[in-house]
């Protein structure tokens, strides 16, 4: 994974892995917090949580630079955090506060931080795919070595824009990484029903693009695939398609009655395949993380999230008339 040899390298590698662990925990606790505050009526609208999918968001984004681009989805909190978003401004946005990333105009489905390359979460399923081709083309025209990542779901994978974007990325050898987070469901619809192939990565061949299926709950496997794809993209060798096989542990949205699946199915994934527990076990085995250290990380993260919630709660709502701002640069 990391270039071999040397104690320095080992140390750096350890630091990277612990950062990844910490970020996964942050995503988990952030989402848990969001779920609780939604249930408590503090977060308006509806929210989609990525609990159980932390290996995908964090694994991929751990390979990115701050100036790389990410186009996200309706289930985008994890992508945001993994790319380095500020928890306070995110929480404030979910709460609809003036101090939020979007001054309360966006909410959960539309958080974004353009300063760290997030081109927006997106309320339109597959909405990020057309945008990412533009980011990729822009990189090519500006001759930088940035890369552009788009996350989308198994459900999204059936929308037309995916096809157009993959073809475009391939013919122009754009530095794009297509990451489908196959979490088995699109809202109420199982992937096995909605998709004509089991492995979505088989579609990559139709674009002459490398495509691979990854155990999406194994953050190291995700990272390995992403590192290779990022390297390929940076070297101007074009796009890659990565299918992270994972599972949506929560309902589609908070409050989803979930009549479309058995609880036992969910429990099995939660118990046997939790990405954070799996990674923790690996770190334990590698002797990089003690129980105590992990408890301390947990506490630190919890404190950060508490601070974010406090910030959000103490922040003012935007003034109603602010609704008229921000539409045009030059009205």
């Amino acid at each position, binding site marked *: 994974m990391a270039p071999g040899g040397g104690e320095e390298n080992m140390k750096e590698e350890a630091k990277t892995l612990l950062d990844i662990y910490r970020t996964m925990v942050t995503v988990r606790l952030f989402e848990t917090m969001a779920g609780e505050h939604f249930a408590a009526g503090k977060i*308006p*609208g*509806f929210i989609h949580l990525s609990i159980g999918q932390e290996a995908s968001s964090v694994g991929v984004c751990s390979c990115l630079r701050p100036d790389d681009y990410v186009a996200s989805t309706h289930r985008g909190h994890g992508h945001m955090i993994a790319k380095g978003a500020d928890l306070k401004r995110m929480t404030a946005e979910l709460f*609809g*506060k003036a101090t939020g990333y*979007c001054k*309360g*105009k*966006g*909410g959960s*489905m*539309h958080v974004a931080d353009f300063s760290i390359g997030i081109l927006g979460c*997106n*309320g*339109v*399923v*597959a*909405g990020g795919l057309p945008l990412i081709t533009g980011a990729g083309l822009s990189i090519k025209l500006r001759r930088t070595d940035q890369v552009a990542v788009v996350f989308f779901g198994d*459900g*999204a994978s*059936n*929308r*037309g824009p995916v096809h157009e974007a993959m073809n475009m990325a391939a013919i122009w050898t754009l530095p794009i990484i297509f990451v489908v987070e196959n979490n088995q469901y*699109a*809202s*109420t*619809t199982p992937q096995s*029903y*909605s*998709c004509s192939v089991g492995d979505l990565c088989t579609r990559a061949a139709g674009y002459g693009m490398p495509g691979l299926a990854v155990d999406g709950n194994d953050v190291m496997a995700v990272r390995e695939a992403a590192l290779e794809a990022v390297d390929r993209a940076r070297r101007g060798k074009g796009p890659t398609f990565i299918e992270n096989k994972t599972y949506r542990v929560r309902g589609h949205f908070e409050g989803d*009655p979930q*009549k*479309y699946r058995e609880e036992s199915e969910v429990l099995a994934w939660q118990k046997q395949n939790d990405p954070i527990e799996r990674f923790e076990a690996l770190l334990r085995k590698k002797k990089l993380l003690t129980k105590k250290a992990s408890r301390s990380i947990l506490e630190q993260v919890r404190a950060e999230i508490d601070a974010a919630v406090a910030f959000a709660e103490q922040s003012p*709502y*935007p*003034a*109603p*008339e*602010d*609704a*008229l701002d921000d*539409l045009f640069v030059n009205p």
Partner: protein
Amino acid sequence: MSERILSASAALAEALHEEMTRDETVFILGEDLTAHAGIFGQFKGIPEAFPGRIIDTPISETCIAGCGVGAALTGMRPIVDFHFSDFVTCGMDELCNQAAKIRYMFGGQVNVPLVVWCPDGAGLRAAAQHSQSLEAWFVHTPGLKVVIPSEPADVKGLIKSAIRDDDPVMFFQHKRLFAREGPVPEDSEFLIPLGRAAVKREGKDVSLLCYGSGFFICMEAAQALAREEIEAEVVDLRTLKPLDMETVASSIRKTNRAVVVHEACLTGGFGSELAARIQEELFDELDAPILRVGARDVPIPFSPGLEDFVLPKSDSVIRAAKRVCYR
């Protein structure tokens, strides 16, 4: 005709049940329909009663719309559920370049008996991409009919007519009105013809012309206005295309004043069309300009205070009504 109190959702489900029983070519197509009987529970009972005739699709709005058109061309009467009206953007070619034009372009060879059911409207803190009211786009597209019911009985009577109609119908139902209740005729032949408005409150001082969620705002406003001795007539247009200009005109001949109200953003909304037509056809009847009430010209923002600020309220209607009454 015996009536019960039903929600708008239940009225829809009942109408669909009746029409699917009556005509076996009627079926429903869309995302996430069977597990929870539609994402708003709007098709309650249909999955059980008509297995195989309410069909879950992949997320493929372009093809869902086109699939409806293709089925309509080949002997079926599909109802396409568009999930959220906001995503009509993903099926505009199928709706506006195909469904709307096919009959005409091919010289009347074929009919397109398609209903496109779109839950629309704001107020759920669902932000810019899940809150729009886009009916004006389709009013400006020759070949489509546009229906927007408000009360549960209208939902029942109009969806039934839309299904039986041989032309493509865009049918918008406001998400925030699903739970609203009202009396609904039990009669399975209860049909409200397309193109027929309803005067739902009589009044002599000002005509409030509205549809969908705008109707409830207007009824609220009318009550408040009555307390100030302004008697507003509330005309629920119900279908925007065909438009019942006769009912509109006779109301205005009586009141000589009009306010047009809708939830869609003001500029280029249906209110413009109606105001333009009224002043054109009834210029000499007007004692005041026709005022329009609609949402502010911005995308729908998320935060409750912001969203409430941009949406039209009964207050805005009251203010407009008073203005045209020079009060």
